[in-house]
């Protein structure tokens, strides 16, 4: 019933990615912003 490309319902649990914190995109970067006022 389940083809090679389909996932069985039992395999579709809470997405692992949602359990992880999304990393900040600019962590540790130094940014100079003009017209910042």
């Amino acid at each position, binding site marked *: 019933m389940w083809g090679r490309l389909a996932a069985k319902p039992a395999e579709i649990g809470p997405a692992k990615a949602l359990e992880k914190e999304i990393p900040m995109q600019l962590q540790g*970067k130094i940014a100079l912003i*003009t017209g910042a006022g």
Partner: protein
Amino acid sequence: MAYAAEGADLVLADLNAEALAEVQKAVEAKGRRAISIEADLGDVEAIDAMVTTAIKQFGRIDVLVNNAGVTRKAFMMDITEADWDRIHRVNAKGVFFCMQRVAREMIKQNSGRIINMASIAGKGYRDSSNVAYAGSKGAVIAMTRMASSQLGGNNINVNAICPGITRTALYNTLLETQAKNAGLSMDEMAKVAFDTIPLKLANEPEDIAAMAVFLAGPGGRTITGQSYNIDGGLIPD
């Protein structure tokens, strides 16, 4: 603020020291480091001093956002030489020398991202504040393209953002002038302006900041020489 929320420490530059102090406070409240530099961004000596201070404080500059810009609402035939000089001094000359001076540091680091705030005015949007301003933003787009090709070998990406109608303090001043000229209230004038946008949505500053974060972050790794419109569909280019 979006940069601080995404983990960056900031060097904030502007002519307005009071406004800078407020932004610095808000950035620090997010747990990020920030310094403020009061600078005339049309003055090359001031730009040099700004970069020197930034390097002294933080040791490097990973991202430059050239956001400073000036304009006023005026018909082409009313633009004076003083208007032209004031607009191009900050919007074109200032952007060039900020890029050049910061790129000197980025070349040593062999990495960097430069994001220039252009405008759909630079692509000929007909309701722009004035023709001289449009010329200055066209210069930003052209400089972005050429700088990207010259700095690419140093792992420096150079891109531009072209906002359309955006609810900033500068835009509200322009809208006020337009409303006065048309004999309309600010709300009526805003409706007239926003009805011209295919999505019927004006930008909030956060819409522009989101693109600036993306271009500086991992997703922008292989993007350079581009100028992205954020305009609700005003200019399909």
